[in-house]
């Protein structure tokens, strides 16, 4: 390396061609193993997956596999279930993230204040995160089932339901079942990350603000929120992407039903690929979802950078 650098300024390099080639390719040779590994594990499957979107790939049809151009995307534009699923995805993601964030922030603020037994409370509050999502889906499905679960009876007792029916089989409200399960499961993520951010705020800033005359709410607004903003932006973005792609709870609890009312794009992809075995169409839907989430992430990254620059 040093040799190559030193030789460069002195006109024509007189070393034999092979020597020059060896020293020029040296950095690429060193990084080749890592690059080859990354390309084979990440890029190859991605490219093959994307290629499915432009091919007729049906698992049960031995003659499929031919290039069909944008046919899948044309079909998608007219697919009512897809548009419904897209709407459901916004609904599912929006409510899940908003509620997880609100409860997570409240929990983090509570756990930030010292009190007796805080260690135990912290451990308990973070427990749902450790439960496998399938298990929590099954558990909540059971809780909503009027035969074995108590929730329909409580809702009936409170007068919120006219009869103790299964929430998950009501076409108008079925989406709330997975959303509630998801909120329960995802609060700890926000609580942990926001608590970490809260604890990194220097205490004397609060003291200075208290002396300057700020009420607790004013201190929250002018110190806590500005300090949390970058963390909030990045966690909300991450969770939105995850939840938009997160079909486990829906597949386990409602399987997209009743009548596709809880079908989100991710669960629709799963249905197309593994129930209808139409990998080509599923891949086309996945590409649309990918594009939407990319646009969304770019926006959040821009927002975060503006927030950080203001610091």
């Amino acid at each position, binding site marked *: 390396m040093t040799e190559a650098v030193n030789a460069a300024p002195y006109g024509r390099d007189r070393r034999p061609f092979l020597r020059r080639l060896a020293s020029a390719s040296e950095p690429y040779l060193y990084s080749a193993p890592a690059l080859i590994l990354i390309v084979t594990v990440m890029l190859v499957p991605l490219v093959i997956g994307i290629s499915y979107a432009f091919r007729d790939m049906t698992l049960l049809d031995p003659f499929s596999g031919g290039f069909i151009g944008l046919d899948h995307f044309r079909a998608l534009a007219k697919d009512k279930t897809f548009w419904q699923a897209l709407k459901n995805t916004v609904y599912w993601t929006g409510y899940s993230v908003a509620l997880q964030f609100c409860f997570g922030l409240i929990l983090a603020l509570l756990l930030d204040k010292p009190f007796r037994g805080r260690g135990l409370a912290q451990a308990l509050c973070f427990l749902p995160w450790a439960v496998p999502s399938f298990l929590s889906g099954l558990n909540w499905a059971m809780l909503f089932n009027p035969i074995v679960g108590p929730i329909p009876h409580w809702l009936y007792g409170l007068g919120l339901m006219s009869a103790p029916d299964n929430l998950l089989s009501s076409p108008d409200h079925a989406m709330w079942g997975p959303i509630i399960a998801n909120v329960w499961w995802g609060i700890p993520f926000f609580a942990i990350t926001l608590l970490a951010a809260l604890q990194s705020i220097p205490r004397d800033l609060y003291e200075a*603000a208290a*002396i*300057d005359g700020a009420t607790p709410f004013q201190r929250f607004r002018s110190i806590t929120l500005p300090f949390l903003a970058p963390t909030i932006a990045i966690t909300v973005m991450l969770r939105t992407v995850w939840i938009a792609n997160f079909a486990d709870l829906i597949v386990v609890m409602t399987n997209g039903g009743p009548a596709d009312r809880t079908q989100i794009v991710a669960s629709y992809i799963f249905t197309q690929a593994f129930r209808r075995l139409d990998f080509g169409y599923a891949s086309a839907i996945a590409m649309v979802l990918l594009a939407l989430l990319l646009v969304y992430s770019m926006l959040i990254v821009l927002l975060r950078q503006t927030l950080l620059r203001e610091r």
Partner: protein
Amino acid sequence: MASIDITDVRKAYGAVKILHGVDLTIQDGEFVVLVGPSGCGKSTLLRMIAGLEDISAGEIKIGGKRVNELDPKDRDIAMVFQSYALYPHMTVAGNMSYSLRLRKTAKEKIAAAISGAAEKLSLTPLMERRPKALSGGQRQRVAMGRAIVRKPKAFLFDEPLSNLDARLREHMRGEIKKLHQDLGATSIYVTHDQIEAMTLADRIVAMNAGVVQQVGSPLDLYDRPANLFVAGFMGSPAMNMFEGTYRATDGAPRIELGQGISVPLAGPAPTAEGTKVTLGIRPEHVLVGRELPGGFEARIDLVEPTGFGTILHASAFGSDVKAFSLERGLAERGDTVHVAFPVERIHVFDTATGARIG
């Protein structure tokens, strides 16, 4: 502006007692420095005045009004923190105007107040910067600016200069003193640096282990320390202390230091014959020479030139004696010289109680 009255104030965290009953009255416009080693309770006392710590017992009054139960925001005091505690997401102007904005002060008044303070502290060109773009000294000045825009009843300073380098600290010390002379505001200043205490204070409160040791003007504390703690804490290089025995039977009061050396005293001390006492003498008062009447032999172990003067470490009568002299070349390492303790410069303390007895 207001006076501050502290009456038998105590602080305990559970069983651990931090302050054991502090009584102190600070006059309107006075600059009082709380000084003492780490953990002596001086910062706790300041934070109790600010309202950042609960008062376990006793009473604090600001301007004649009891503030024990008041929130910091209702006490009308301003505080400068050791870490400056500037709001990192606000500009210098934003930091300085925050308290006024919270009070819904009129925009023109805020602008006038912060530009006045900025001018006083030469911050005017920095008003739109954020704290992270400022140097340590500039941050320090912003923290002071934030305090003065409000015209509070009292200023509290919690070791405000300890994060600065030595030169800047000296400079800011001067600025703080000038500012106090300008504003004439009641100020309480906490530090562990006795030079800061000496130079800034109208009155020094020396504290140790949660107890006030002595209250007085800087020169009072320096010239007539009330006990061994104050004597040892104030002054650098520190006062020489030698343990000995008090003798006065033959009408000539003196202290026997061992090895047959005894030092005569100016007058009798209010203590019994044979009491263990400690003789204290400041290094700058120790005389060093080739031949001194009433002096005793000492061997020079170490010579420390400071430029300003010379610190000589000598051994005599089995003890180390430090002497400070403005003269250079007084002695070399290994020289045998005479040292003498002028009788009017000697402090006498009771070794057992630590109290001054002469």
